[in-house]
């Protein structure tokens, strides 16, 4: 019954990952009533958006995209987001935790832990509850961080959006159980098996638009504890004696500008980024300030409902 697959027919590694992700997205749409895609505007979200267009072609993307706006995103991210929504034509929901804004919660005065909890985790929960979404796509990958390496593709959340790592549903083959009761939901990670290199290669090969912040340019930054933070607007709170300097930098991950570390780089094209990536010796999430708050902090955040 079996035959050896001729090499010309064998899907490449990236084609296999693409097919797997498309299959997962279609499965969610088939099984769930109200899916939504978390759109963080980062490169992984850009790939996820591209995969969604492929999955449902020639039809439109059959679910809205949700952006949790902390109000502290890079300005270039917001303009990119708006441009994509117009060009591609998806339904965009933008949610901000109004209570947090009213209380003036910001990453400078309240510490990254509290700030992230209120403006990201709480905000996300509010938005998911408001939309009564039973499934939410995210672009997370298992290679990003230790606790993610054990998360399912269909990751079950209880009615309080909590993840219980000791009680995950067995997930075998490509059989995904998306069934939930009222109030419960699943987070779905179609790119679970991608690596950072895969993402960059795919962006390159598929010519996927990404926020220009990923490319090196002269930007005003200050250096704090060895991390380069960009001064993106006049809300930046300087420590005593701090003066922004123009350095040629780019970002490997994007989030809230005061919490996103830049790296010094001269890579202005995708091949240059991939070239730098291949010789990189530091992992991607290192630029994220929030992961270093406490030991096991990502797992803790996920238990509480962070994506």
């Amino acid at each position: 019954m079996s035959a050896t697959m001729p090499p010309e027919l064998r899907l490449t590694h990236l084609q296999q990952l693409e097919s797997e992700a498309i299959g997962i997205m279609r499965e969610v749409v088939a099984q769930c009533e109200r899916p939504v895609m978390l759109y963080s505007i980062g490169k992984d979200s850009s790939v996820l958006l591209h995969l969604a267009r492929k999955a449902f072609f020639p039809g439109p993307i059959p679910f809205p995209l949700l952006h949790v706006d902390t109000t502290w995103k890079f300005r270039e991210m917001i303009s990119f987001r708006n441009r994509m929504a117009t060009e591609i034509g998806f339904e965009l929901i933008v949610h901000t935790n109004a209570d947090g804004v009213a209380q003036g919660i910001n990453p400078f005065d309240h510490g990254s832990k509290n700030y992230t909890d209120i403006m990201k985790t709480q905000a996300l929960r509010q938005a998911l509850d408001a939309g009564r979404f039973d499934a939410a796509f995210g672009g997370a990958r298992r290679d990003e961080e230790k606790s993610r390496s054990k998360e399912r593709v269909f990751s079950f959340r209880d009615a309080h959006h909590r993840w219980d790592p000791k009680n995950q549903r067995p997930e075998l083959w490509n059989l995904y159980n998306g069934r939930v009761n009222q109030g419960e939901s699943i987070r779905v990670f179609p790119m679970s098996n991608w690596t950072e290199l895969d993402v960059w290669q795919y962006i390159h090969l598929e010519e996927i638009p990404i926020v220009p912040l990923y490319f090196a340019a002269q930007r005003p930054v200050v250096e704090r504890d060895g991390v380069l933070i960009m001064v993106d607007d006049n809300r930046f709170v300087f420590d005593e004696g701090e003066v922004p300097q123009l350095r040629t930098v780019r970002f490997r991950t994007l989030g809230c500008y005061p919490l996103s570390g830049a790296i010094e780089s001269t890579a202005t094209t995708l091949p240059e980024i991939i070239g730098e990536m291949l010789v990189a010796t530091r992992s991607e999430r290192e630029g994220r300030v929030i992961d270093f708050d406490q030991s096991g902090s990502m797992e803790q955040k996920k238990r509480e409902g962070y994506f």
Partner: protein
Amino acid sequence: MPDQPGLVHSALEASGVDAYVESHQRKDLLRFLTCGSVDDGKSTLIGRLLHDSQLIYEDVLASLEADSATQGSAGSHVDLALLMDGLRAEREQGITIDVAYRYFSTERRTFIIADTPGHPQYTRNMATGASTCDLAIILIDARHGVLPQTKRHSYIASLLGIRQVVVAVNKMDLVRWSRERFGEICEDYRSFAKALDFGEPYFLPMSALLGDNVVNESDNLDWFDGPPLLEYLETVDIGSGVDLEHFRMPVQLVSRPDADFRGYAGTVTSGLIRPGEEIVALPSGLSSTVERIVTFDGELDAADPGRAVTLTLTDEIDISRGDLFVTPGGEPQRAHELDAMVVWMTEAEMEPGSTYLLQTTNAVSNCTVRSLRYRVDVDTGMHEQALGLGLNDIGRCVIGSDRELAFDPYSSSRATGSFVLVDRLSNATVAAGMIIGAASVWDHAPDAALVRQRSEISDAERAIRFGQQPCTILLTGLTAAGKSTLATALERELFDRGKVSIRLDGENVRMGISRDLGFSAHERSENLRRVSEVARLVNGQGLIAIAALVAPDGEVRQRARDLVGADRYVEVFVDTPIDVCRERDPHGLYAMADSGEIPRFPGVSAPYDRPADADLRVDTSAQGVDECVAAIVRVLTERGFLRGPSTP
């Protein structure tokens, strides 16, 4: 060799990033899992693979060194296991409680590693990890050798369809790199793994802690010639085993963005399809022709295994999610009742009669567990009777679905041969299933509306009339072993003694009530079932049944025994050496089996399970017919079948 930063850098300078990207994305993908007992060093091994491949980022290594000081158990060494044990609970307890996936690539291949738990209670997670893997690394601690856990993990890997195995005998440093110890363990492993459906394992001595034979060869193991682990993983043959002949595409979604377009979205699981080719939708059986293969990147000339596509057809036929597209010829099986191996994954016990949702690749139906045929003792491979299945139990069940399922045996297709069971209230996934085939008629319960018509004649009256107690004698053995000859001689002997018997010869039966049957294992099983049913009827009338069939499958013979009733069943193993059978071979069947003209011929190209517990063994090459018949009569006499009712 791994993508060491230095090497990559020079490759980049020489050929440019585009060329590198091109070559990298053309690499093969190998998915493998690591399993073994607690403390065999699974996590350490993977940490070592990544570390020696220089794939651990500097900052990760730095935090690892810090963690090793407080939580590590590797003494003065960096505890590489901490890299893999991602969840806080495991880092604190020092155990791996869930499947962790890791990704790395070398110049030759891309790898996905599933690191799976060692504790017995996490068997379900190991099954999860194994379900998507092509190869298993089974770790054995050289000091402890083959343990029950080793057997358990090997069995599960085999059950989940893994055929390629590396047996990594780890911690060789702690047995002074002993070649003898390594040899002993290999022998132990071989002897129990014979029963498993593996290819020839690759036995590899190593020390993951010290790095011997992981990425680099070992000076301490200079008596060992084989490649180290990484080199083996880079070169082992994969990619065979993809079925290009039997087209299968489960329909995931019907795409109807507007009135002009109607397409069927899904991923091809096997075979190829091209525009213009005929396609059949199961279970309806409606057929049409593929018009276009639509993708975001343009229309395709062919859709091949693994590709996610959308098909349009030339006819508007009624197709929905849950249907399976196939091409005519070599179609999958269809049935409501499945015979399947099941891994139980939840605390709540499964008992026959329990109902669940049955989820296949693209469809969900209601199902009932009809019966539990046996539970497997995974430490010994033995089958045992059980009333139900608990967490981490594995058993063989008959499951009835309320809709007809189209499927392939799991051994030919994981995608169309697997399912999970889901609890209807909690929605938890409670079991994983691997389909063996359609449950045979053996398992069908008769229609509940039927009423058995009783006779007015009692068994005692019959026993007085015939001077005998009814029984069924099954003569089993290879073709040309002498079964039919013995059956006719036995019939004559019983007749002459005034007994009443009916002879059911396999060949005669095939001319009549089994005229519709061929010689596949399934059809041989059905033939024996019909003979057994007739024998049961005949026994019910007080007569003796003499059945002569090859009956090669021990499990099927057990079913015959159960059907007739063990107290009335007499199994005679006609154990004539195969060379003698070949010499006799009146119809030249062995020659046809040798040339492949007759496929699946027991003793030649299909197994004949030698009966282990036959009531009698005879050998017609060493014993004459009369001698054999006398021996059978002796057994019948001893068991009291050849006399009337015992007087009080």
